[in-house]
């Protein structure tokens, strides 16, 4: 951090002195800045802008909702190191969500909820805080309650393995914004997968109790796993246009990784079928579990009370 200090390193007495000065060294800036400021957000030729935006919303909502869940661990984790690590993962996903929601808004302004005239709420926040649950496009895996630490680890392992495979392909997207988001995100997801993979093996081979909890937790989330590989119409369109990824195409390589972790852990694949939708509607269609509405109720309450608010 020393490279961002503006004061003499030993000048601790004046820790207060920078308070009334706006300089360039505040973490997260001194004001809201468009995360895509200065980035060319032109939609590539031959790409359906609405499909691209819907796709960004899917990937953005996955990250946003899981980030919200993982942040619930803050001050509740088994030890300080895990508290910090889970917060890190939540922060990374939140960063990905901001970029993807901003990309969605830039590609299709019609997606962005309208607020009263003069509202200063930026697009990413309108999308995050002023859509209802049925407008969210996240897979249902991300919205489930955390369960215990083992269940959270199992979920982070499955989610980050899948998302890393998607992002590695997405880093070659014809859409320069998505390609850049994916390239940066892939590095983060590699760490998330590594963290979860290590803990998965540790819990599987730690004590009888940790193994029992891990097997139980994995079983709880397993029915939500197949949904991640089902190709939605939007994904079909963006994959064909060379800007998105058909998740069915990453299934085989994801499977290899998960099998490796299961083998190293001595844990069997759960024998449970995929969770049905409602009239076929699942997360990507806006069909969710009972949990999402509650997640959003908490997440959106302050923002919705102040549609003209400045934060």
């Amino acid at each position: 951090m020393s490279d961002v200090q503006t004061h003499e390193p030993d000048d601790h007495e004046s820790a207060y002195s920078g308070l009334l000065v706006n300089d360039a060294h505040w973490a997260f800036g001194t004001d809201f800045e468009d995360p895509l400021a200065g980035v060319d957000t032109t939609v590539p030729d031959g790409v359906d802008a609405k499909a691209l935006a819907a796709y960004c919303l899917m990937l953005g909502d996955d990250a946003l909702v899981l980030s919200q869940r993982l942040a619930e661990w803050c001050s509740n984790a088994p030890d300080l190191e895990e508290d910090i690590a889970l917060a890190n993962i939540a922060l990374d996903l939140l960063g990905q969500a901001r970029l993807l929601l901003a990309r969605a808004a830039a590609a299709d302004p019609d997606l962005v909820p309208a607020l009263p005239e003069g509202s200063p709420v930026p697009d990413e926040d309108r999308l995050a805080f002023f859509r209802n649950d049925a407008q969210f496009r996240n897979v249902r895996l991300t919205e489930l309650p955390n369960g215990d630490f083992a269940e959270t680890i199992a979920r982070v392992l499955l989610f980050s393995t899948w998302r890393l495979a998607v992002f590695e392909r997405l880093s070659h997207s014809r859409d320069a914004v998505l390609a850049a988001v994916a390239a940066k995100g892939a590095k983060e997801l590699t760490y998330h997968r590594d963290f979860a993979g290590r803990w998965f093996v540790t819990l599987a081979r730690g004590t009888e109790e940790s193994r029992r909890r891990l097997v139980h937790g994995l079983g709880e989330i397993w029915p939500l796993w197949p949904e991640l590989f089902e190709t939605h119409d939007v994904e079909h369109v963006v994959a064909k246009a060379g800007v998105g990824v058909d998740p069915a195409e990453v299934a085989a390589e994801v499977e290899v990784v998960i099998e490796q972790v299961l083998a190293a852990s001595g844990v069997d694949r759960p024998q449970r079928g995929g969770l049905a939708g409602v009239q076929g509607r699942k997360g990507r269609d806006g069909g969710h579990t009972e949990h999402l509405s509650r997640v959003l109720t908490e997440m959106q309450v302050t923002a919705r009370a102040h549609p003209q608010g400045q934060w």
Partner: protein
Amino acid sequence: MSSAVADHELEAHFDATIEHADRIEPRDWMPDGYRKSLVRQIAQHAHSEIIGMQPEGNWIGRAPSLRRKAILLAKVQDEAGHGLYLYSAAETLGVSRDELTEMLISGKQKYSSIFNYPTLSYTDVGTIGWLVDGAAICNQVPLCRTSFGPYGRAMIRICKEESFHQRQGFELLMTMMRGTDEQRAMVQESVNRFWWPALMMFGPPDEDSTNTEQSMTWGIKTHTNDELRQRFVDMSVPQAKALGVTFPDPELVWNEERGQHDFGQPDWDEFWAVVKGDGPCNAQRIVHRKRAWDEGAWVREAALAFANDSSRKGESA
């Protein structure tokens, strides 16, 4: 050479180190009282960071913008990091993190009373950053020069991050003051609630402070409670003016003669009630910490069992 003579020489060396304002290091000889006093103070400080995660963590899920959510989550994460450095500094004195956590949960060791106040609106995140972190900085900046090396070095790093937090808190309040009338009223209401508890953070008036004198002789503490409180008031007044809020103290006025502000006294009865465990959130904070610690026990046991198992296999291989 008898051990009495040796102790005498060691003590003389220790006293000389203190007198020259040099650092005492973990392997140096130190009087038992110094060690105990340090463990108490560093542990209390570490516990404050960890308990302090709760009042602000209370609003992570309800942060009103994604940028504010990121700022807040990163801040609370920093507090966990500060707790880590400080527990590590305490460990150099021969106590483990587990022992210290048990002492926190059982109420044998304390943490800063400020965290026994509730956070009732998102604005409190900004007010805590500005006033509570500001008061903490006033308390902690002199500790960067404290006589025990690992503590002083941890404090240098912590103070740098705390001043970031303070600026972020102040920036949130500034932004809200540019917002709606309702938001401006929220800022004033929050400042009204936190001003007096912030003044209490410097501890009781000097004449009632039991630990100050010895701690100052040993160079663990370098300023008295009242000195630091005065400094805090003098620094905060111009900031309140820049922000456009007032402090809820009719006695607060500039004293030309002293070149300092005169100000009223916090409600010390409330202070002692909170210290003794009857604050609005004392029980809640400890229950929360105890639940997280107890519910994590099986994870910590699993990690230990796995590490032991792996190292056994490593040896036999």
